């Protein structure tokens, strides 16, 4: 019998220990970890995150806010953290803590958080998804603030519109980017090819550049928003639009891409390549040209310091075109609107936006910054992106954009892998997209 009791007591004690951890909040949990992991403490102090101590030093009225984003700490995350620190230093009413969460994970956190009601005060969102999350009630309607702000008129129309849902503003645009054609100057010279400007020239160039182990062109056709982002420039350039996916122009665009793969000028692996993969193909000389965005500039310089490369506008069919990429920030529904708005005004405002976008190779979505600074004009690569930017179209905004995007993505895969003809694939995509829009 003694044994029995020892057994029971043992279990009870263990349960208590474990539950004991649970009753305290995160702080206690972290204490537990630091106690058990003494070597880690020295590591922890290196973190750029603000220490909670600063709070007690202040007057005590400081309001704590959190912001979620997916700027990777190794790249643009550092620049963003600096801007957040600048904001904290610029006033003493609010203190903002930033949390990095990878993109896919962040989107999931939002949708779970909506049900579970565990969300930050301010959140970042990819601009084509903004409308969907606004419809889901994630973001606070800040029409009044946006319309009352004297700097609102400085934003470009496309980025600003991507924050709108049913005529109301749900956030501010923070940064912009678009796609352009990257090419390896040496490879082009060697093959005797000029920088292509039209689809025909591009096809011809890709043909000449394709040789053993090197593909003429690389794009990303991965089965998610990234792949769609990369396909839309072709669709728009052919004169089609996302409302009529089965139009002859749209078919022409998809046929063009499919032929590139069929002819072997583009790897059939593009359906699994993300844009980061595409960049690696280009940097390692496995692709002579690629379609990619300005966030790869620094990475490419680092990966291939000796490579001679340049960028140009994406070759056109009927017209030049590109797609507007970028992120917006919104205030989460039911959170501190005043504090959130102060923060938004800072990071999307003149100083914050200029600093962040300059440091990360992105574009500020504001006229005043682009006009006054020659950072974007003087750099030979950035200036091309700047030109391309003028042709950049926003995706949506539409609350059902994720569904439309999925339909396009499926059509791309079906056509590139040869399961369906481009006509049939787009016809089916059109039916799916229409169904989504109907609801």
């Amino acid at each position, binding site marked *: 019998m003694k044994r029995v009791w020892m057994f029971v007591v043992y279990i009870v004690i263990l349960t208590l220990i474990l539950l004991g951890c649970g009753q305290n909040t995160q702080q206690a*949990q972290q204490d537990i970890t630091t106690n058990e992991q003494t070597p880690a403490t020295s590591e922890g102090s290196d973190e750029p995150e603000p220490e909670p101590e600063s709070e007690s030093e202040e007057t005590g009225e400081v309001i704590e806010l959190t912001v979620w984003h997916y700027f990777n700490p190794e790249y643009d995350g550092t620049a963003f953290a600096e801007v957040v620190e600048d904001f904290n230093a610029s006033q003493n009413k609010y203190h903002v803590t930033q949390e990095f969460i990878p993109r896919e994970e962040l989107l999931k956190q939002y949708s779970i958080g909506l049900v579970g009601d565990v969300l930050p005060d301010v959140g970042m969102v990819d601009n084509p998804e903004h409308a969907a999350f606004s419809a889901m009630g994630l973001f606070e309607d800040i029409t009044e603030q946006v319309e009352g702000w004297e700097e609102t008129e400085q934003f470009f129309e496309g980025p600003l519109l991507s924050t709108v849902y049913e005529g109301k503003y749900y956030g501010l645009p923070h940064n912009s980017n678009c796609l352009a054609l990257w090419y390896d100057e040496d490879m082009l010279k060697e093959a005797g090819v000029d920088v292509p400007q039209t689809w025909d020239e591009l096809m011809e160039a890709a043909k000449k550049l394709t040789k053993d182990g090197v593909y003429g062109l690389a794009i990303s056709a991965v089965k998610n928003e990234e792949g769609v982002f990369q396909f839309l420039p072709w669709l728009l350039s052919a004169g089609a639009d996302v409302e009529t996916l089965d139009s002859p122009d749209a078919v022409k665009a998809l046929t063009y891409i499919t032929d590139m793969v069929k002819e072997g000028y583009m790897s059939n692996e593009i359906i699994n390549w993300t844009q980061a993969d595409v960049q690696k193909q280009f940097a390692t000389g496995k692709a002579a040209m690629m379609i990619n965005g300005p966030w790869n500039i620094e990475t490419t310089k680092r990966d291939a310091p000796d490579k001679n490369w340049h960028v140009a506008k994406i070759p056109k069919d009927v017209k030049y075109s590109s797609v507007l990429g970028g992120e917006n920030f919104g205030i989460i529904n039911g959170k501190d609107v005043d504090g959130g708005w102060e923060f938004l005004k800072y990071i999307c405002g003149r100083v914050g936006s200029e600093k962040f976008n300059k440091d990360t190779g992105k574009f500020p979505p504001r006229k005043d910054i682009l006009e006054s600074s020659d950072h974007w004009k003087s750099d030979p690569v950035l200036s091309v992106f700047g030109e391309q930017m003028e042709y950049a179209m926003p995706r949506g905004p539409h609350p059902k954009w994720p569904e439309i995007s999925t339909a396009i993505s499926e059509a791309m895969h079906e056509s590139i892998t040869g399961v369906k003809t481009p006509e049939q694939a787009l016809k089916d995509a059109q039916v799916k997209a229409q169904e989504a829009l109907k609801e």
Partner: protein
Amino acid sequence: MKFFRLSGRRKSIFINVIAIIISCIFLFPLYWLIISSLKPNAEIFQSPQTLFPRQIQFDAYYDQLFGPNSIIRPFLNSLLIATCSMIVSMLLGIPAAYGLARFKMRGSKIFILTFLITQMLPATLVLTPLFLIYKGFGFLNTFLAPIFSDSTIAIPFIVLILRPYFLSLPKDLEDSAKIDGCNTFSAFVRIMLPLSYPGLITAISFAFLFAWNDLIYAMTFINIAEMRPLTAGIYHFMDMYGTEWNKIMAYAVFLVTPVIIIFIFLQKYIVSGLTSGSVKG
């Protein structure tokens, strides 16, 4: 099972060689993982691939250890989560397996069914409701959330693995223990557990591994960067670096090495347990 009575040195060498070849083929992917982590990325992108790096470099490892996102802290987090989850799973799972194997109970079949079905939904599909539960308990952003979630994978596993094991142990042993004056619980703790420790070690190691390898629960229930485990770290990597294979593989080596060491160590015990007289009966 002994089909072959090995006679002669030659036959023995032959079998050992065959075994080595089989193991090498089977473990080739791991060799590839380590080799790729030692190559510069440019070499990885050359084809055909080099079976041994032309130039061995440890840059990828250096980056992971001393770079801005050092793996040391996440490593310790992983260790804590996996150990706690292993303990919880053992405390709950082992007695349950024993109870189901040894006692005639009303509803024992329903209990087994429950253990079977409770582990049926993929983690990704129970995220939202689990999130709601943990929110209610105040477990979000504490290590308890991943610990308990990981235990929900391990407990049914332990029950289903150990129940047949307990069944296969001769009941006479327990009975004779009782004659010697033990009651049910002391018979369990003193006789049955020591007897079944090879099975226990197997089950426990797996319980540890489930938690060690978990990504999705930790990612979903913990939002504080310093509290994330190693698996979350590699996920960040995949997210951002795409095909920087050498770095990803170096990260993977860190993720795998400690478990390999532990497991090889325990393997000795499992095997000795299997061959020791007590189990064979």
